[in-house]
């Protein structure tokens, strides 16, 4: 959907158009943005520069000052660290920069691939709270995540995939109670 891999068949419908043949950078301009697995930040650039690059399309650039304020409000630590090179930040802070960079594109759909990977648990909850906040601000959030309890508590709609097929779907709250999901992902001790 982000445009790095072209679909071999079928279409990706967005806003009445087909994204299957749109350049990856234009997809961002149309309001879909992906926070890739492993963050993939520009680690030799500063926090500020990473955020600035997130707002590259003309539409995003016009809104950049407000977007930046929103990111700093969401993750105050980034404001303190804005002149630091990203490599010097902790994993959790880097994930905040990754989410912030994506938000700078003024997206309507924010997609995240495994944002909790390799991050201290305390920071995972900070990031998930930020995702809820972003969602309340009117941005759709599509989250692919192996941290099942945290994701299901957050999600309005959730799908459980096993071996590439969707085996369960429903509201996050309902799936948290689902016996199959509880047995497979939450462990025998889950209450």
């Amino acid at each position, binding site marked *: 959907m982000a445009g790095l891999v072209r679909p071999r068949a079928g279409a990706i419908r967005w806003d009445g158009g087909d994204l299957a043949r749109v*350049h990856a*950078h234009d997809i961002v301009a149309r309001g879909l*943005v992906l926070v*890739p697995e492993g963050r*993939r930040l520009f680690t*030799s*650039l500063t926090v500020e520069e990473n955020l600035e*690059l997130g707002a*590259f399309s003309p539409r995003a650039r016009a809104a950049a000052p407000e977007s930046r304020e929103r990111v700093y409000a969401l993750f105050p630590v980034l404001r303190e660290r804005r002149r630091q090179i990203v490599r010097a930040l902790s994993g959790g802070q880097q994930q905040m920069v990754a989410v912030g960079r994506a938000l700078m594109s003024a997206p309507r759909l924010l997609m995240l691939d495994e944002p909790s990977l390799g991050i201290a648990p305390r920071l995972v909850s900070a990031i998930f709270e930020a995702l809820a906040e972003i969602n309340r601000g009117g941005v759709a959030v599509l989250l692919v995540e192996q941290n099942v309890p945290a994701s299901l508590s957050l999600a309005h709609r959730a799908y459980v995939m096993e071996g590439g097929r969707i085996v369960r779907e429903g509201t996050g709250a309902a799936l948290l109670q689902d016996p199959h999901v509880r047995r497979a992902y939450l462990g025998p001790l889950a209450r």
Partner: protein
Amino acid sequence: MSVLAQQLVLGLLIGGLYGLAAAGLGLVFGVMKVLNVAHGELIMLGGYGAFWLVTLLGIDPFASLGLVVPLGLALGVILYVALFGFVVRADEETRVKNSLLIGFGLALALHATAVRLWTADERSVPTPWGGAVLSVGNLSLPVVRLASLGVALGLIAILHLLLTRWRWGKAVRAAAEDWQAALLTGIDVRRAYVLAFALGTGLAGAAGTLVTISYSVSPSIGLEWSLKALIVIVLAGLGSTFGIFVGGLVLGVAEALSAFTFGGPYREVAGLVLFVVILVARPRGLFGR
């Protein structure tokens, strides 16, 4: 002693041009992971561009930079669209092989064209203050070469500002680090590549102009300059524009020392020894990341 000092000063003066030559090669290599072996031929072409502007139109040699650099930028766009753009799409192994083929092919073609247009003779351009020499103590500094060094440093500073202050300059650095992430961020990576290649060619044009003003140009200087530039980027490493410039100065001084100690024929040896030593001892270069 004063002979040694004089040699070192002359080494510094040519070292600045090594640095400028390497900055263009290093920019393209760092961003696109393509070693443009025709970079020296682009320098040669820039030199003849200046030669024509000065002899046919009577422009001041240093002022000819104002035309050679934009022409170099334009040539860079053409070369990228016609040749190097196809290489960049390939995976890494194919990219290396194909870029060498294209680079050597381009180098041969440019060399043959230059022999046709300008014959194999060495050319230089006269400056109004051609033979002027600045004496400091018992050192004599050729004014033209001193001015060339200053211009080279100025161009390096401009490049640094473009890459660190300009939106598209930052996009070029981002694409150099992770082109897929740059795409996902919304950066048109192809345009960033075109820009990097054009800047590299523009810098080659500037280096060629200064080489022709300070020394001379002939169709066969290309390979030598490609090698010098390659040695400098191995020496300095990628990632810092000023680091590459300093690397050029280091090579110039090392060559002068080698020529002074072991005699003129051993001038080039210093560079090659430095090349090997750095590859063994510090593969990412003196200032590399």
